[in-house]
């Protein structure tokens, strides 16, 4: 497949997988096929939304992560945390306790990514002001949404604000702080505790034009399990001095739905859930939507609180974080976020250094890069679609009839994989029943009955 440049974090554990095809059915980008009884992920179509990970009843899909011991390659080991991590724990657990457990695990520094919300906000506001012709603006906050637009809605890329992801900004900021203290660059390791599979992929996709600022990612469920085990195990006195800077309410809420849109100027919308986002982008491409200034689009239901690597119920996480934010609001009253006259040098530096160049499209729907060849394939595709039953049963190993037709013209499947056509051919003596069985085996594997004797008369 083309577009190997994208690294994907979702992996199939073939031992655990029993070949049920739930993953194929839920994939919003039709990226999964069944071959030999196991899922095959078409890398150029996958956006790492993690729907398949959630749907798998056998937990056979996992998210690749760095070995935790990687952190010990560095003398300064920085854990970058989204507020979502705090939301995994009951409100009775002080954040200091969570931080202290992370330090005991081996990190030397903990830093809340939410601290960067104002940098992000100011840079967004400035970009919008200087690029009014690109309205409506789409935030680049969610890496899965960014991939979705690159692969399926390339004509909308112009509307995306080309800004670094929040965690990359946090990594840049913290690294700068440590460099200023005289810590050598190669001794600094920055690690994101990620609630999301797409972020893992984004970090692992190499960018030849850029020096690494984020060194690795640790899956949130791994951290949660380790920390929660210790917190449940023992009471502990906390040191009086804070272990990390206190996050303001907006930094806490940033990772939740409306975390950005609420502070955007003009008319803004916050949309979460990948199906909702796809539907909206379809309408937007037709220009059915007008007069919107800013769009916050997040792949997961309840935004990052619904990230696939979270452990706690997403609605509970939202409620806990709202309560924590309310406490922060009462503790410190926030200044006007749009003021430019009170920002410090760091903020100013970051606002100037977090814009990316052009974001490239990675179109995944094209039948062929050459339009002439694509036309030939399209004609064939239309003929195939006309004979397929249109029931979208998935028994051919492709998620629906349209996908099977595309797979056939791309040489990724055979038309005879369609169960209905196969039956017709067998009935017309064009295909032997044994041959039909072999085709079925190639899709679903030989062992689907595990050698069990089947007697339908019984």
């Amino acid at each position, binding site marked *: 497949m083309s577009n190997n440049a994208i690294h994907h974090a979702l992996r199939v554990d073939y031992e655990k997988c029993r070949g049920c095809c739930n993953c194929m059915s839920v994939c919003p980008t039709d990226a999964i096929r069944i071959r030999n009884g196991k899922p095959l992920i078409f890398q150029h179509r996958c956006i790492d939304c993690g729907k398949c990970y959630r749907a798998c009843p056998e937990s056979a899909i996992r998210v690749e992560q760095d070995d935790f011991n990687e952190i010990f390659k560095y003398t300064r080991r920085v854990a970058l945390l989204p507020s979502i991590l705090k939301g995994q724990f009951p409100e009775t657990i002080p954040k200091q306790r969570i931080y202290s457990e992370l330090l005991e695990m081996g990190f030397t520094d903990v830093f809340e990514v939410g601290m960067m919300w104002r940098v992000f906000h100011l840079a967004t506001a400035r970009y919008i002001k200087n690029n009014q012709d690109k309205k409506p603006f789409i935030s680049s906050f969610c890496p899965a949404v960014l991939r979705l637009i690159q692969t399926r809605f390339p004509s909308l890329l112009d509307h995306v604000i080309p800004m670094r992801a929040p965690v990359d900004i946090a990594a840049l900021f913290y690294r700068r702080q440590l460099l200023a203290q005289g810590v050598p660059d190669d001794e600094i390791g920055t690690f994101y505790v990620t609630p999301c599979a797409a972020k893992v992929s984004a970090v692992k996709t190499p960018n030849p034009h850029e020096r690494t600022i984020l060194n690795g990612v640790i899956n949130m469920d791994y951290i949660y399990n380790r920390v929660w085990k210790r917190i449940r195990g023992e009471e502990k006195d906390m040191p009086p001095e804070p272990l990390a800077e206190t996050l303001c309410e907006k930094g806490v809420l940033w990772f939740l739905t409306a975390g950005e849109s609420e502070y955007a100027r003009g008319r803004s919308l916050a949309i979460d859930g990948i199906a909702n986002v796809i539907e909206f982008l379809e309408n937007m491409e*037709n220009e059915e939507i007008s007069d919107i200034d800013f769009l916050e689009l997040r792949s997961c239901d309840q935004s990052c609180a619904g990230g696939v690597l979270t452990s706690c119920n997403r609605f509970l996480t939202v409620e806990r974080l709202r309560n924590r934010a309310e406490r922060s609001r009462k503790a410190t009253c926030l200044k006007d976020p749009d003021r430019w006259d009170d920002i410090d040098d760091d903020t100013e530096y970051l606002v100037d250094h977090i814009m990316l160049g052009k974001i490239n499209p990675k179109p995944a729907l094209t039948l062929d890069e050459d339009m002439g060849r694509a036309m030939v394939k399209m004609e064939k595709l*239309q003929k195939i679609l006309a004979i397929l039953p249109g029931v979208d049963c998935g028994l051919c190993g492709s998620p629906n009839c349209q996908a099977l037709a595309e797979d056939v013209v791309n040489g990724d499947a055979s038309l005879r994989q369609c169960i209905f056509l196969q039956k017709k051919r067998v009935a017309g003596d064009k295909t032997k029943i044994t041959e039909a069985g072999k085709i079925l085996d190639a899709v679903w594997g030989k062992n689907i009955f595990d050698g069990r004797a089947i007697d339908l008369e019984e």
Partner: protein
Amino acid sequence: MKFEFDIADGDFAKAGTSSSQVKHILKQLNVDTKIIKKTTVAIYEAEVNVVAHAVGGGKLLADINLERIVVEVADLGPGIADIPQAMVEGFSTASPEVISMGFGAGMGLPNMRKNADKLEIISGVDEGTRVVITNYI
């Protein structure tokens, strides 16, 4: 290569279905994104006009080759009495009901012209309307 889609009348929620289908085909054919965009917008406007004005729905015919995309949207609706007047921004004959749904701002035909390399409108009172949008690749 030719494609044909039906457009139902009266259902604004469905307006955009045919344009989305054409859009999907153009993406599969690897047509330049800017051309896809303007073609989709032009077709969508034509589709909305059918939904808003025509009785009995309409048909969308797309003919695509390596040089150009020709989309014909035809209906048997009331027709347009004065085409030059209909091309003026803001001119609308939409019913108050249609306007209350956020359509009928009188931008349909002007927007179509803006997004088409060539636009032909053949219409007469009670003769229906045929809009032919051509975009060169």
